[in-house]
């Protein structure tokens, strides 16, 4: 093996700054896209369980349309295909204000929203129907029963798969490099290009993703314990078996 390791490329020159900027952009695009995805997912996932047929169809259409097209295609679609359809002033404004960032947000948001939607739907479907009936039989409207009972319970139940999906969203934000978003993977590629040290650059990127995702997974697992519903199977009770 003749490869000469040179880890100092990571802190010489601008590398450190690039990695930091990349991390910040990854976090920014992930957080904004997560809010979009989570909102779309919770709402459409809940709607898919109600008895109002047109709404249910609309939500099903959203899920099937947006989850069955590759994320990369969505990136290209929202960045290259959609802006030319917009009015000229809006186009100009977008391209002055990071159009690639917003296209990436929309692509990640709608794609993961569709996936969150299924997580939410399965969470709601694991709640006995009679609990909903008990809620509405006290006079709560359907919307109140969902807002006060069904969704809060489902949110607690779906923490593990929702964490999984959130981590996927962060990792998938790297696809946004294809439309020029200068996120973490984009920056590691840049370091590699400037220094020709692929192993060092990609190792740095790998570790940063790993630490970021592990930190989130740990936080979520704390949340899961904090919000565990008494009487449900949780980690704390496994000793009884």
């Amino acid at each position, binding site marked *: 093996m003749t490869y000469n390791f040179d880890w100092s490329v990571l802190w010489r020159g601008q590398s450190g700054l690039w990695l930091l900027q990349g991390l910040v952009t990854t976090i920014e695009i992930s957080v904004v896209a997560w809010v979009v995805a989570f909102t779309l997912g919770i709402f459409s996932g809940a709607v898919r369980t109600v008895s109002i047929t047109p709404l249910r169809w609309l939500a099903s259409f959203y899920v099937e349309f947006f989850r069955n097209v590759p994320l990369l295609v969505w990136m290209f679609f929202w960045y290259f295909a959609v802006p030319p359809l917009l009015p000229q002033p809006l186009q100009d404004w977008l391209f002055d204000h990071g159009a690639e960032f917003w296209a990436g947000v929309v692509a990640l948001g709608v794609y993961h929203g569709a996936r969150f939607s299924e997580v939410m739907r399965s969470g709601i479907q694991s709640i006995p129907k009679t609990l909903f009936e008990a809620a509405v039989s006290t006079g*709560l409207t359907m919307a109140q029963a969902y807002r006060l009972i069904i969704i809060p319970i489902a949110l607690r139940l779906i923490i593990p798969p929702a964490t999984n999906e959130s981590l996927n969203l962060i990792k998938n934000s790297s696809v946004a490099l294809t439309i020029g978003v200068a996120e973490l993977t984009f920056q590691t590629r840049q370091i590699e290009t400037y220094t020709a040290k692929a192993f060092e650059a990609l190792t740095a990127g790998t570790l940063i993703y790993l630490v970021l995702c592990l930190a989130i997974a740990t936080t979520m697992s704390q949340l899961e314990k904090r919000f565990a*519903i008494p009487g449900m199977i949780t980690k704390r009770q496994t000793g009884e078996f």
Partner: protein
Amino acid sequence: MIEFRDVDKWFGSLHVLKRINLKVSGGEVVVVCGPSGSGKSTLIRCVNRLESIQSGEIIVDGQSLLDPKFDPSKLRTDVGMVFQSFNLYPHMTVLQNITLAPTKVKGLAAGEAEKVAKELLDRVGIPDKAGVYPANLSGGQQQRVAIARALAMKPKIMLFDEPTSALDPEMINEVLEVMTDLAHDGMTMVVVTHEMGFARRVAHRVVFMDEGQIIEEGKPETFFGAPQSPRAQQFLGKILSH
């Protein structure tokens, strides 16, 4: 208070309620009994519109459930319901379970709702359980909380759908006692149950159903003493023999 007029209901091709005519007056306690699948649960679930009907008419507290202006949520504030499976909100304490509807539906202040809830917990005999989660209660206690939750809306009618069927024998009585108290206070009650002792002691009238039809109805002493239809005789023979 409740009136069924020629009510028919189907689940797909299954004819679950056949030409039901039934009147329940204010303050009356009616026990509905019959074999599994006879339509008795479906019958009371029609009263608060958890089920809709395909023909006939149901009138509850003076309003027709077929009226285009009819609002199920408004009706349900006057009609409490207790289920076989308790259905307490597992993520809320007992107190929160009881105060939720009064604060969210009637706009009662939190303090006022808590006062009402504590009085009701006292009434159902578990004043010390306000801060506990449902999972930490016995079945009998959970069902008593469910009754308190329904009563917190100050309903005019209470529906009970097999309230003791999921309970251990020793817990059945604590729930029946609460229901008996309620009946003595003059609550209009429709109770689907297999507790024939309760029916005998508390009911003003017993309705016997089979295959979606009301086969027989009458005062408990008549129904239990001298059932008219062969189907009712057979049913009572089976359940009273042990």
